[in-house]
C-alpha cells in the first residue's frame, strides 16, 4: 500500500482524463438507471413518511429453551405477513431484525390500531370439522372468479395431472385433498367420494347437524351472508371467525379453493401439532404431501374427530385447518387416524406443501411475541422531520463549503465538486437500494449522511495538506500532486477502513434505528474512497496542469509564497539564497 508499483503510478498519472471520464460515465449510468427504474426518490422510513412500525420481540414459551431460531422466526414472519396482508394493507412489510425481533412496518393511511391488534396477538390454529360448504358466490359475483391466492396450488387440473390414479378424489373435489394415516399410506380412492363441484347447492342442503334444525338454518344463513369474494370481506370474515369461542360454530373462507364453509366447534387445537413437514412421497406417487405429528392428547382428539368424520357424506367428511379465522386447507378424511401422525395429500406443489407445513408447525411454534415498541408517526410530523433533516444537511454542507472556500480557496472547488459528486451518488444509490434490498431512509440514516459530509471532506483535507506539504518542500505543483498522493492515499484508506469497520460492526450487531445510521455511514465511507480515487485525484492531476493552479495564483490555495515554500529545488523562479529557509 505504501509503495505502489511504478507502472500503476504511471498509468494513474498518465490517463487522469480517462479515469475521470469513466467515473462520470458511471455516475450518469447510475443516475440514468435510477430514472429508468422509476424510483427517483429514496424509499422513506416510517418516521419520515408516517405510518406505524411495530417491533415484536420473540419470547420462549416456558420449558422451551431454544425455540428462537431462524427457522421458527421465518415461519413466524410468514404468519405475520399473512395477517397484515389479510387486513388489506398494501405495502406492509414484515422482516426479522437481529435474532429475535420481527419488525412490522405499516405505511400511513391504514388502520394502525387494527393492525396492531392483529399482529400483537398470538396466532391461533385450529382443526374444525366442516358442517357445510358453498362455493364463493361465483354465480352472483363475477369478481370472485379470479383466484385471490396466487400460489396456484388448489386448482383441480394440477391435481389431476399429478396423481390421476391413486387419489381420484383429488380430481373431482374443489379442495382435492385427503388426509390419511401418516405412516401407512392407505388406498384412499375407495373411500373418498368425490365432492361434486358442479352441484354446490346440493352439498349445502343437507346440514345434518345434531344441534337441530334451527341452528342449522342459522348457520346456513350466516354462510349465505358470508362474503368471500373481496379481500375486505374476507378480512372481516376472518376477524370475526378468529374471535369466536372454541365451542362456537363459525363460517370461514377458503381463499385457495374459492369455497366457504360453515365449521363446527374446535376439534383439535393447533398447539397439539408437534411437527409438520413437507415431503415428496416417491413410493405412493402422490407427489408432495404434508406430514404432521400430534402430541398424545392431540393424537387422541384427532383420532376421535377423524373417526366421526370418516363415514359422513361429502363436505362433512372434511375438516378445516383454520389459521386466524381463515381456512388454510380443508382436506377430506378417508379413514380414522389413530396413530397420532397423519398426512395430507393431493395436488400440492413443493411450495404449497411447504406453506401448509409452515402454517401447521406454527401451531407448534413454542414462541410468543410481545410488542417491544410501537411507533406511530403522523404523516405531517414525518414530513416535518424529513424537512428538518434536509435543512440540517443543507446547513451542514453550506458551512463546510464556506469553510473550505475560505481556507483552501481555488483548491476548494475540487473539494466542492467531489462533495457534490459524492452527494449525487449517495442519493442515487439510496434511491436504487430502496427497491433492490428494501432500504428505507429513516431519520438516523439522514443523520448518518450528514455526519458523513465531514468524513468525506476530511479525505480531501488529507490530500490537500499533503500536496501543500510537498509544495512547501519547494516542488512545483505537478510533482507535488504525484508525490503527495501515495501518502495521502494510504492515510485515507487506513482511516476510512476504521470508519467502515465501526459502521459494519454497528450494522451487524445492533438493532432498530441504529442500523439505518450504520448503513448510511458505511455506504458513504465506501463512496468516499471511490470518489477520492476516481474523481478527486484525476481532477487534481488535470487541474495541476492548468496555469491558475500550477503557477500558484494567490487565489488557488496553492501559492508557494503563501504556503511558505522553500525556494524551488530544480528551477529557480525566485532568487534567494538556497541555504536560507524562506520566511513567509
Amino acid at each position: 500500500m505504501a509503495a505502489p508499483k511504478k507502472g500503476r503510478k504511471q498509468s494513474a498519472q498518465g490517463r487522469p482524463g480517462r479515469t475521470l471520464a469513466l467515473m462520470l460515465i458511471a455516475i450518469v449510468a447510475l443516475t440514468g438507471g435510477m430514472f429508468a427504474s422509476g424510483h427517483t426518490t429514496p424509499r422513506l422510513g416510517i418516521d419520515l413518511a408516517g405510518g406505524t412500525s411495530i417491533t415484536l420481540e420473540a419470547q420462549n414459551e416456558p420449558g422451551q429453551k431454544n425455540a428462537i431460531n431462524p427457522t421458527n422466526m421465518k415461519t413466524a414472519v410468514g404468519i405475520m405477513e399473512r395477517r397484515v396482508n389479510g387486513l388489506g394493507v398494501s405495502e406492509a412489510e414484515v422482516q426479522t431484525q437481529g435474532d429475535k425481533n420481527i419488525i412490522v412496518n405499516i405505511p400511513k393511511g391504514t388502520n394502525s390500531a387494527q393492525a396492531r391488534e392483529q399482529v400483537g396477538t398470538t396466532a391461533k390454529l385450529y382443526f374444525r370439522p366442516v358442517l357445510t360448504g358453498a362455493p364463493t358466490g361465483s354465480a352472483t359475483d363475477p369478481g370472485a372468479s379470479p383466484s385471490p391466492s396466487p400460489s396456484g396450488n388448489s386448482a383441480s387440473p394440477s391435481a389431476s395431472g399429478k396423481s390421476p390414479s391413486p387419489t381420484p378424489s383429488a380430481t373431482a373435489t374443489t379442495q382435492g385433498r385427503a388426509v390419511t394415516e401418516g405412516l401407512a399410506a392407505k388406498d384412499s380412492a375407495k373411500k373418498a367420494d368425490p365432492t361434486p363441484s358442479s352441484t354446490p347447492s346440493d352439498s349445502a342442503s343437507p346440514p345434518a347437524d345434531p344441534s337441530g334444525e334451527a341452528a342449522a338454518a342459522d348457520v346456513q344463513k350466516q354462510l349465505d351472508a358470508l362474503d368471500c369474494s373481496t379481500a375486505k370481506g374476507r378480512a372481516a370474515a376472518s376477524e370475526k371467525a378468529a374471535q369466536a369461542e372454541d365451542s362456537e360454530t363459525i363460517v370461514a373462507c377458503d381463499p385457495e379453493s374459492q369455497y366457504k364453509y360453515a365449521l363446527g366447534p374446535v376439534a383439535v387445537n393447533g398447539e397439539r401439532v408437534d411437527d409438520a413437514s413437507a415431503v415428496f412421497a416417491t413410493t405412493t406417487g402422490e407427489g408432495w404431501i404434508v406430514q404432521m405429528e400430534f402430541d398424545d392428547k392431540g393424537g387422541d382428539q384427532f383420532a376421535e374427530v377423524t373417526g366421526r368424520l370418516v363415514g359422513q357424506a361429502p363436505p362433512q367428511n372434511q375438516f378445516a385447518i383454520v389459521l386466524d379465522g381463515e381456512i388454510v386447507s380443508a382436506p377430506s378424511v378417508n379413514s380414522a387416524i389413530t396413530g397420532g401422525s397423519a398426512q395430507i395429500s393431493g395436488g400440492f406443489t413443493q411450495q404449497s406443501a411447504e406453506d401448509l407445513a409452515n402454517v401447521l408447525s406454527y401451531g407448534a411454534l413454542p414462541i410468543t411475541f410481545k410488542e417491544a415498541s410501537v411507533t406511530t408517526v403522523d404523516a405531517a410530523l414525518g414530513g416535518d422531520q424529513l424537512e428538518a433533516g434536509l435543512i440540517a444537511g443543507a446547513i451542514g454542507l453550506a458551512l463546510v463549503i464556506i469553510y473550505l472556500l475560505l481556507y483552501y480557496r481555488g483548491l476548494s472547488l475540487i473539494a466542492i465538486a467531489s462533495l457534490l459528486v459524492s452527494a449525487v451518488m449517495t442519493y442515487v444509490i439510496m434511491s436504487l437500494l430502496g427497491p433492490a434490498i428494501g432500504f428505507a431512509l429513516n431519520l438516523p440514516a439522514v443523520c448518518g449522511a450528514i455526519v458523513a459530509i465531514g468524513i468525506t471532506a476530511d479525505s480531501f483535507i488529507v490530500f490537500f495538506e499533503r500536496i501543500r506539504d510537498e509544495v512547501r518542500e519547494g516542488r512545483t505543483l505537478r510533482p507535488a500532486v504525484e508525490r503527495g498522493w501515495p501518502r495521502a492515499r494510504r492515510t485515507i484508506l487506513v482511516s476510512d477502513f476504521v470508519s467502515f469497520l465501526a459502521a459494519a460492526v454497528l450494522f451487524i450487531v445492533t438493532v432498530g434505528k441504529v442500523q439505518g445510521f450504520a448503513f448510511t455511514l458505511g455506504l458513504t465511507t465506501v463512496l468516499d474512497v471511490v470518489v477520492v480515487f476516481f474523481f478527486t485525484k484525476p481532477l487534481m492531476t488535470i487541474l495541476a496542469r492548468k496555469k491558475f493552479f500550477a503557477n500558484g495564483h494567490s487565489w488557488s490555495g496553492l501559492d508557494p509564497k503563501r504556503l511558505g515554500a522553500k525556494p524551488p529545488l530544480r528551477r529557480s523562479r525566485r532568487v534567494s539564497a538556497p541555504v536560507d529557509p524562506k520566511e513567509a
Partner: protein
Amino acid sequence: MSKLGNLGARLYRGEVGYDFVGKRMFWYGVSILITITAIVGLAVRGLNMGIEFEGGAVFTTPKTSVSASQAEDYAEEAAGHDAIVQGLGSGGLRIQVAGLDTNTSDQVKSELAQDMNLDPERISAELVGPSWGDQIANKAWQGLGIFLVLVVIYLAIAFEWRMALAAFVALIHDITITVGIYALVGFEVTPGTVIGLLTILGYSLYDTVVVFDSLKEQTKELTKQTRWTYSEVANRSINSTLVRSINTTVVALLPVAGLLFIGGGVLGAGMLNDISLSLFVGLAAGAYSSIFIATPLVADLKEREPQMKALKKRVLAKRASAASQSEPQEAEAVDEPYDEEPEDATPAVVGPPRSQRSQPSSRNRGRGRPSGKRR
C-alpha cells in the same frame, strides 16, 4: 487567512509548535482529572435514561393551543404517571410519559386526544417496552466490545501494539468523558445518544490514525540517526498534522452543529438532537485525545524500548558534546527546539528538523517516505 496559512507552513517546518509530548504529564493530569470528574458524576448523578430504555411513551402532537402545563395535567390524569411536556418549534407538544405499558398507551393516547381536542390519528406515538431498551443497550455494549477488539487487532497489525494500546486508551477516554458530561449535565440518554457515541468511536480513531500514520512514516529509520529522540519526532508529527487535525475537526463539527441547531431549534428534541449532541461532545473529546493523549502515550511506551533508550542516550550525548563545541552548532543544542517561539524568531536559533541548513537534504527529506525512495 494568510496568517493561518503561514502558521501551517511554520508548523510544518517545526518553526513553531507546541511541545505536546514534553508537557504530556500536564495533559495526562488534565485528562485524569476530567475522567475522575466524569466517573464521579456518573456514580453520583447517574444517567438520565430516556423512555426508550425505561419503557414508556412519547406522544407528539400537531400544533395545538393547549399549553404545556395544561397538557401535563391531562397526560398525568390519563396515564397515572408523571409526564414531561416540551413545546416544539412547530407549535406542537412532545409529551413523555414514563412507565407506560404498550397495551395501555393506546387508551392514554385517545384520552389525550379527547382532552386536547385533537384527532387521535394526528398524534404520533412512540411506545417502548422496557425490554426493548435493554435489548438496544445490550446490543450497543456488545457492538462496542466487538468494535474495540477488532480495532485494537487492526491497529496492532497496521501499526504496532503500542499504538493500538494508546488508541484504545484514547477511545476509552473519549467515551468516559462523553458519558460523564451526559451524567453531569443531565442530558437524556436515548438510542440516538448511543448511535452518536458509537460513531464517535470511529471518528475519534480516524483522527488518531492520521496522526499515527504520520508518526509511523517519520520514525521509520529513526535509529539510524542521532539527532532526535522518538518523543521529539512524535511531537513533530503532531505539529505537522495539527492543521489537518484542526481542519478535520472543524469540518466534522460543522455539519453536526447544523444538526444540533436544527434538531434543537426546529424540532425541539428527538433523534436529530440526541445524535448530534453526543457527536458534538464526543468529537471534541476525540480531537483532544488524539493529540494530547494518544500520541504522547505512544511516545511514552516507545521510549521504554531498549533501542529507543539507547537512541535517546546517543542523541543527548551528541547534543552535550555539540554544546561544548563551536558556535555554529548551537542551534542543535537547543534542548526544546519545538517550544513556542516568538513570531519573529530568526531561523538560526530554531533548529527546524526539516531545515536544509544543518542537514544533508537527501537524508532528511526523503526519510521514511515511499515517494522519497522511488527516486
